[in-house]
């Protein structure tokens, strides 16, 4: 037990070392000091190397050029020095967060894609799974997974974000929150599937149909009402993610993908689509996923995710030394392309256009970087993004003023990181 605890600490420190956050001296001193204490208190301790890679680990050679390496393997595993982890709660109703601080680029490894389930992850045999399309259609259809894969297919890169992402950072920001805690309910994948309009054409959707019910095959038979116009725009029924079949946590064997719309509406384990003329008013579009407002109303069917960004490095619990650092993170908008990300390194007094890495795809995470030389002074790092509609990510104060501190979903407020004079980096949510 004691040994395992030490391994956890060592692997955490090793992980930080690989990312260049700790000096070798700090690593050798162990992670029990101030930095290590913060690490252990503020972030979930990742699975130890032994848990991730099995107990029979060969020793690390002093010089890897003097011994033969490992043979080939059926399925690759991460380096034992790299142990990113989600934050499982152990409940079937709940979530686990993507470790945004451990990612680069914009594609989330499928096994680190955040989870939000309402009745656990169902175990579905794809050969027995079917998608039924019925209601206001001329030809009700029952399609097997294999049949769905025979339609013309497309591949698209899109983010998925839970409507509740950022709630804690909105209501009660704390200095020891990591990017994972602040905004880990978003992830991005390359998705492959069939445009929903192709399936609707196959079923012969009747002209009067304006809404459809999308229903999953999990233990709560999760269901959402979606406007048919979204199907005719860019909705997909996907079966693959990052080059392989969907992960069970992401809806294997089929999920609805509604680019730019709140995660809950992207129904996983999709089993049924019913066409109709009005919304069904399921629990997930009435009791949940509605936005109470200060004027005593609640916004309903607030599907679109407004523009948002977060700096993922530097972030708590990193410790900086003076010199050049990349200030990097991700930005996205459910309304189209990100056109601009600005970074402030002086608490918002001045702003710099960050470099957008690679193409800014519509309704997709884009990575931004601003190179910055820390001079040892206390400061706050901030990011804000603008999308192609001209929408600028608001401050927390602006959003609280508009929606109230108790509103329940769609938290796209600006956030940042407070850098102390001794180089510690703490979450700054009070923008």
């Amino acid at each position, binding site marked *: 037990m004691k040994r395992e605890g030490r391994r956890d600490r060592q692997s955490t420190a090793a992980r930080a070392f690989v990312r260049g956050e700790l000096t070798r001296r700090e690593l050798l001193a162990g992670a029990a000091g101030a930095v290590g204490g913060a690490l252990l208190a503020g972030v979930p301790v990742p699975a130890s190397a032994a848990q991730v890679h099995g107990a029979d680990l060969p020793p690390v050679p002093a010089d890897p050029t003097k011994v033969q390496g490992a043979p080939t393997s059926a399925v690759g595993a991460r380096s034992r020095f790299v142990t990113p982890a989600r934050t499982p709660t152990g409940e079937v109703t709940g979530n686990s967060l993507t470790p945004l601080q451990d990612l680069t680029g914009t594609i989330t490894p499928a096994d680190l894609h955040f989870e939000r389930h309402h009745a656990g992850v169902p175990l579905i045999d794809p050969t027995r799974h079917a998608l039924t399309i019925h209601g206001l259609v001329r030809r009700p259809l029952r399609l097997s997974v294999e049949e769905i894969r025979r339609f013309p297919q497309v591949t698209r890169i899109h983010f998925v974000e839970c409507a509740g992402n950022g709630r804690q950072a909105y209501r009660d920001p704390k200095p020891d929150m990591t990017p994972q805690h602040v905004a880990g309910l978003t992830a991005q994948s390359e998705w492959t599937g069939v445009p929903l309009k192709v399936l609707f054409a196959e079923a*012969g959707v009747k002209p009067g149909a304006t809404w459809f019910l999308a229903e999953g095959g999990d*233990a709560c038979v999760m269901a959402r009402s979606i406007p048919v116009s979204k199907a005719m725009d860019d909705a997909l029924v996907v079966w693959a993610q990052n080059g392989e079949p969907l992960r069970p946590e992401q809806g294997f064997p089929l999920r609805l993908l509604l680019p730019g719309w709140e995660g809950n509406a992207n129904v996983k384990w999709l089993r049924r689509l019913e066409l109709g003329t009005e919304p*069904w008013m*399921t629990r997930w579009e009435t009791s949940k996923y509605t936005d109470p407002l200060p004027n005593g*109303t609640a916004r309903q069917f607030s599907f679109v995710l407004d523009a948002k960004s977060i700096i993922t490095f530097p972030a708590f619990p990193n410790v900086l030394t003076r010199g050049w650092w990349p200030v990097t993170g991700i930005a996205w908008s459910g309304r189209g392309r990100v056109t601009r990300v600005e970074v402030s390194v002086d608490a918002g007094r001045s702003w710099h256009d960050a470099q957008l890495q690679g193409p800014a795809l519509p309704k997709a995470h884009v990575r931004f970087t601003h190179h910055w030389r820390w001079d040892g002074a206390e400061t706050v790092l901030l990011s804000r993004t603008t999308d192609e509609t001209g929408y600028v990510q608001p401050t927390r104060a602006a959003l609280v003023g508009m929606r109230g501190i108790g509103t329940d979903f769609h938290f796209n407020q600006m956030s940042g990181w407070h850098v102390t004079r001794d180089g510690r980096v703490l979450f700054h949510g009070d923008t």
Partner: protein
Amino acid sequence: MRLTLIALGGAALAACSGNNPSANALEPGTYGLGRAPTAAEVAEVDIDAAPNGHGLPSGSGTAAQGAALFRTQCAGCHGDKGQGMAPVFPALIGRDTASEGFRFASDPKLVKTIGNYWPYATTIFDYVRRAMPHTAPGSLTNDQVYALTAYLLAANQVIPDGATLDSARLVRVQMPYHDRFVPDDRRGGPTVR
């Protein structure tokens, strides 16, 4: 092109996706994949119930029957008074004055219940039938779901304690805060809403 597609509906869609070989007698734009589900196959999965009564089955139940069911099937997670067990099992019942008036945006501590928040009574039936009880989802009969719906509405002071519910009565139940729900008015652009 997109506007045209929406305006013309199915016909334009068919033309758009119509590069499939159509030697067989398919409707243009279709691929001949899948088959018509049988009535039994549809019935097995078609479990939704909507505010206009669509999908509500025959059957009925009383609030008293529902109270007994609640004790055996629901109270273990939701509490004997329906007060819930945070964070996993939500509160169902409660009309305390502090939480009345739909002030949820101003105070995150206010607890939402069926009575002080939910806009449609049919949602209770739809959800209980598809998802409850936690230990045996989808195991309740339609009569039992009507009874539990009646109990939850009565305990939330929406219908009388002695009420019986069936499909005709359920669609007529008006929830206290039904009119507070409004469409999304966010449209992008420079205005934050």
